């Protein structure tokens, strides 16, 4: 029996190269050689928080109900970076931040990040963790109905939803739209992007949330990661274009190579 499974040599190679690329990119990130382009929805976040201060109403930041152990962990991490950023803005500008929690493993990290952000602004005494980061439920619709209930009672002026979202995305987007909150939504769960695109004032599509998370965190490791992904995407584009042109003239060499 072969040591390497036939037909999977290219994927294995690609996987090992990811490893190398991540190392190189993170080092480049630390040297400040990588810049992430500005993303439109991000500027809107500051506007949302500012609007809440003006109107004297709270601002919601929902990071979704992903965990660190499911395949949407990246999105949760991106959501947490944004939460940290929003918490900093809220503390500085004096908005009341509300960030309902759904998962027991994410919640302590979220609390820690929000506390840090308030601490940096010297406003730790203004933070009430139990009220501002309540645990609602780990069950999808119980959690969702908990949030829409809170939204109806508190009537926030703004709502930021960045992270992994499931069917509740539509309920949230519609509810917050109805009570007149300005919304920034973003998710990389392809199933839910359309609702955010339709209902939110600003929408981060798919991977934009990762770039946004890296951008606001300013963490070179995160920024480096984005670069590593970009290299793969550039390779995908190059292979697609060359391959499609070649196969148009009857040469199928790229696809054959990839299936080794």
């Amino acid at each position: 029996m072969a040591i390497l499974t036939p037909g999977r040599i290219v994927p294995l190679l690609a996987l090992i190269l990811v490893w190398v690329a991540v190392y190189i990119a993170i080092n480049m990130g630390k040297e400040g050689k990588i810049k992430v382009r500005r993303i439109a929805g991000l500027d809107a976040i500051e506007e949302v928080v500012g609007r809440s201060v003006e109107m004297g109403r709270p601002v919601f930041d929902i990071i979704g109900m992903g965990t660190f152990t499911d395949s949407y962990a990246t999105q949760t991490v991106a959501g947490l970076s944004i939460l940290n950023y929003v918490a900093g803005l809220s503390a500085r500008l004096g908005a009341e931040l509300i960030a309902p929690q759904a998962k027991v493993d994410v919640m302590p990290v979220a609390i820690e990040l929000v506390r840090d952000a308030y601490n940096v602004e010297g406003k730790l005494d203004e933070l009430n963790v139990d009220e501002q980061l309540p645990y609602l439920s780990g069950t999808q619709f119980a959690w969702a109905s908990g949030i829409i209930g809170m939204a109806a009672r508190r009537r926030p002026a703004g709502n930021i939803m960045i992270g992994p979202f499931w069917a509740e995305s539509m309920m949230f987007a519609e509810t917050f739209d109805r009570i007149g909150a300005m919304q920034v939504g973003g998710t990389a769960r392809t199933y839910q992007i359309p609702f955010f695109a339709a209902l939110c004032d600003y929408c981060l599509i798919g991977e934009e949330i990762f770039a946004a998370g890296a951008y606001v965190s300013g963490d070179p490791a995160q920024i480096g990661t984005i670069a590593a992904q970009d290299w793969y995407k550039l390779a995908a584009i190059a292979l697609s274009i060359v391959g499609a042109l070649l196969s148009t003239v009857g040469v199928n060499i790229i696809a054959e190579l990839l299936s080794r």
Partner: protein
Amino acid sequence: MVSMDPSIWIAAFFTIAATSYAFRDNVVFKFAEYTFIGVAAGHQIVMGIKNIRDYGWTKIMEGQIIYVLVFVLGIMLYARFHREYYWMYRFPIAFLVGNGVGISIRAAIHSDFIVQVAQTASTPLIGGGAMGTINAIITFVGAVTAIFHFIFTQENLHEGTLGYIPKIGRWLMLLAFGASFGNTIMSRFGMYQGRIIFLLRDWLQLV
């Protein structure tokens, strides 16, 4: 004739209670919501214990003593609720994460990256008549420009003439999202009709 079965009546009550929120928040909905959370968690525990019995306990009974170690790891998960020994929960979580990550990325690079790129690279742009050519080109342009849209660290690729490429990607994605939105409307109505049929057929017995 209306149904005489109490379980149908309870189910009808909860169906209406859960629907009522779509109109307005109310105390009946809240009752339904708390019931839902409680029952969901209860069911989760029951199924959890059943799984532990079926896939763990039976193994120990068969003499595979090593499974005792899994039970120790499983109990360590609950250490997170302890003030001092909370860090112990990291051991089982680390196991679950390693397994979950390994099992998903090993195939994701294959199914989501290599196979999808190969599919784009192996489709001729011309052929299958005029319609076939148009379709092939739209598919190709959609895939390539959408990837282009998601490049963040090469600023020169989003400026000037090249800047139109990610824009086209965004437009094609919005068209695709529209299709998804339209299909979702069907999805949701398809679901609620099940509840309508229940109310009319099983509860009120009108149809």
